[in-house]
C-alpha cells in the first residue's frame, strides 16, 4: 500500500480517536466510544504494518501475540473491585513502552546520522516522562492491591530528593542533547533516575488518593506517547498522546475538586492526621448508642421508606450481594428502598455504582447525592453501610474540618439512622463523625456483610 494512503488513513484514525474519547464522556455513548477507540487502534496497527514493504513477521507477531494474550487474560480474570489497580498496571506498561521506543530509536538514528536537537529533546522527554509513569504506576498498583511489602513511606527531605532526581534527569537530558556521541549512555542514566523519581513521588501518597494519582499518571503516559510522536515525527502519536494528556489533566482536576482537595495537596501534602486540630473523638463519641441486628430488623419492619448509603466499608466487606438481598426482601414487602450514592464514596469514582451493578441492583434504585438529599426528610430508616466521611455533617458545620466544604449525603436528616461499621475508628479523612452520636443514631458494630446477613435473617424470622 502506498504511503500516501497510509497518511490519509491516519487522518481517519485520528478522527476516530477523537470521536471515541468524546463518546466516553457520556453515559449513553460510552460503550460505543470505547469500541470506536479500539477500532481506531486496530486500524492504526493494520495501516502501519501495510505501510512497510518487507518486515520480519516473526518478532512482530510474537510481540503482539504475547501482549494480546497477557492483556486479555488480565482484563478478563480481574475482579471488578480490583479494576483501578489493573488500569494502573496497564498505564505503567504504556509508560515503559515509550521509554523503550525512544531508546530503540535513539540507537537507530545514532547509527545512521547525527540527529537534530529537536529529536533529541523529544527523546529525552519521552524517556523521562515514560519512566516516571512506569514506576509511579507500579507503585500505585501495589498500594491499591495492598501488597504487604509496600507501606506509605515518608522520610525527611523526601521532597528535596525528588527535586534532586528531577534536576538530575533534566541535566542528563541537556547533556544528551548537547553531546549526541554519548547520547545512549545519558539516556539510560536519565531513565534510571526517572524510575527512582517515580518511586519516591508516589510512595508517600496514601492508597486512598491513588485514583487521582492514576489519572495524573495516565495524563503523563499520554504526554510520553506524544513526545514519542515528536521523536518519530508521527502525527498520530502526537494527537492521540496529547488527547490523553490533556483529558487526563482535566480529569485529575475534576477528581480533586470532587474530593475538595488540591493536586498539590494530594501529591505532597498529607490529610490532617486524626490527632490534629479537629474535635476530639472521645468527646464526640460520648453518647454513642449501639444496637443489634434484631433491633434493626424491628425498625425496618415498621419503616415505609429506607435509604441505604454505602461507602468504602461495603467494598471491604464485599457486602453488595447481601445488601441486594435485603433490598429485594424489603421491596417485596412494599417498602421503598433507595440507595444514596455519593460521588466519592469508596476509593474510586463510580466505585459504589460498579459494586451495586455487579449485585444486580436495579439502576433506578440508585440515586445521586442531590436527588436523595431532596427526599431525606421523609426517610424512616437510613442505613449507613461502611460509609463515614461522605455522611459527616461536620463537612458542612465545621469550617476547620479537613473535609470542610465537601458536599455530603445528609443522612442526619432521616428519622432513624443505623450505622454499620466494625468500630468507631475513622474513615479515610481521619476525623470523628458526630453523626454517630446523634439522638436518633444507632451503631451496629460488625463486619458489613455479616451485619446485613444477620438483619435479613432476623427479618425473615420476625
Amino acid at each position, binding site marked *: 500500500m502506498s504511503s500516501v494512503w497510509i497518511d490519509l488513513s491516519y487522518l481517519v484514525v485520528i478522527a476516530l480517536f477523537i470521536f471515541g474519547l468524546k463518546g466516553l464522556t457520556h453515559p449513553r455513548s460510552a460503550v460505543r466510544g*470505547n469500541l470506536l477507540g479500539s477500532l481506531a487502534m486496530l486500524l492504526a496497527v493494520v495501516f502501519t504494518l501495510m505501510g512497510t514493504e518487507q518486515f520480519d513477521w516473526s518478532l512482530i507477531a510474537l510481540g503482539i501475540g504475547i*501482549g494480546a494474550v497477557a492483556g486479555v487474560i488480565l482484563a478478563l480474570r480481574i475482579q471488578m473491585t480490583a479494576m483501578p489497580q489493573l488500569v494502573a498496571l496497564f498505564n505503567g506498561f504504556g509508560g515503559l*513502552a515509550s521509554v523503550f521506543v525512544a531508546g530503540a530509536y535513539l540507537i537507530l538514528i545514532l547509527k545512521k546520522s547525527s540527529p537534530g536537537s529537536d529529536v533529541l529533546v523529544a527523546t529525552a522527554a519521552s524517556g523521562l516522562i515514560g519512566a516516571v509513569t512506569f514506576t509511579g504506576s507500579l507503585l500505585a498498583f501495589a498500594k491499591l492491591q495492598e501488597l504487604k511489602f509496600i507501606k506509605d513511606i515518608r522520610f525527611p527531605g523526601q521532597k528535596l530528593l525528588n527535586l534532586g532526581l528531577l534536576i538530575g534527569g533534566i541535566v542528563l537530558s541537556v547533556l544528551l542533547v548537547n553531546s549526541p556521541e554519548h547520547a545512549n549512555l545519558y539516556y539510560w542514566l536519565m531513565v534510571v533516575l526517572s524510575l527512582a523519581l517515580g518511586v519516591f513521588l508516589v510512595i508517600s501518597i496514601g492508597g486512598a488518593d491513588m485514583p487521582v494519582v492514576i489519572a495524573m499518571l495516565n495524563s503523563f503516559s499520554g504526554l510520553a506517547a506524544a513526545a514519542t510522536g515528536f521523536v518519530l515525527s508521527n502525527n498520530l502519536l502526537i*494527537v492521540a498522546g496529547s488527547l490523553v*494528556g490533556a483529558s487526563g489533566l482535566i480529569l485529575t482536576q*475534576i477528581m480533586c475538586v470532587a474530593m475538595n482537595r488540591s493536586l498539590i495537596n494530594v501529591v505532597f501534602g498529607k490529610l490532617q492526621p486524626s490527632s490534629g486540630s479537629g474535635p476530639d473523638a472521645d468527646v464526640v463519641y460520648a453518647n454513642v448508642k449501639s444496637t443489634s441486628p434484631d433491633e434493626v430488623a424491628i425498625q425496618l419492619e415498621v419503616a415505609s421508606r429506607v435509604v441505604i448509603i454505602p461507602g468504602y466499608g461495603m467494598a471491604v466487606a464485599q457486602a453488595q450481594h447481601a445488601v441486594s438481598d435485603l433490598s429485594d426482601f424489603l421491596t417485596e414487602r412494599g417498602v421503598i428502598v433507595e440507595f444514596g450514592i455519593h460521588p466519592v464514596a469508596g476509593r474510586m469514582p463510580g466505585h459504589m455504582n460498579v459494586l451495586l451493578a455487579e449485585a444486580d441492583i436495579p439502576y433506578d434504585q440508585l440515586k445521586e447525592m442531590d436527588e436523595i438529599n431532596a427526599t431525606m426528610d421523609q426517610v424512616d430508616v437510613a442505613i449507613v453501610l461502611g460509609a463515614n466521611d461522605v455522611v459527616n455533617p461536620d463537612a458542612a458545620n465545621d469550617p476547620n474540618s479537613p473535609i470542610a466544604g465537601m458536599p455530603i449525603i445528609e443522612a442526619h436528616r432521616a428519622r432513624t439512622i443505623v450505622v454499620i461499621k466494625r468500630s468507631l475508628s475513622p474513615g479515610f479523612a481521619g476525623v470523628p463523625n458526630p453523626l454517630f452520636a446523634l439522638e436518633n443514631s444507632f451503631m451496629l458494630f460488625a463486619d458489613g456483610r455479616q451485619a446485613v446477613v444477620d438483619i435479613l435473617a432476623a427479618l425473615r424470622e420476625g
Partner: protein
Amino acid sequence: MELTRLLLFAQETVAQTAGSESSGGQLMLLLTVFVLAIFIGFEIITKIPPTLHTPLMSGSNAISGISLIGALLTALSGEPAMSRILGTLAIILATMNVVGGFLVTHRMLGMFRKKKG
C-alpha cells in the same frame, strides 16, 4: 506543569535549531498539531459525571497505548539488534496496555448498563 515544562523544553530546542524553519516547517507543524490536540482534549472533557471517571480513565489509558505504533515502527526498521529487541519489548508492553485497557473498559461499562428490576 508537566505541560509547560514540555513546552519550554520544545521552545529551547526550536531556538537551538537555528532560524531555518518557516511557519510551515516540520517541527512547527508538529507543535501546532500538539497544541490543537491539547485543545480538543480539554474541550471534550469538560463536564463528565463522576460515575464515568473510572471508565474514562481506563479508556483513555488504552488510547495512550498508541506508543504501540511507535514500537512497531522501530521494530520494523531492522538492524541494530539491540533496537529491535527494545522495539519488540515495547510491542509486548504496549499491546498489553491497548488490548487489556480496551477490554477492561468494556467490562466496566457493561456493569453500568441499565438492568431490569
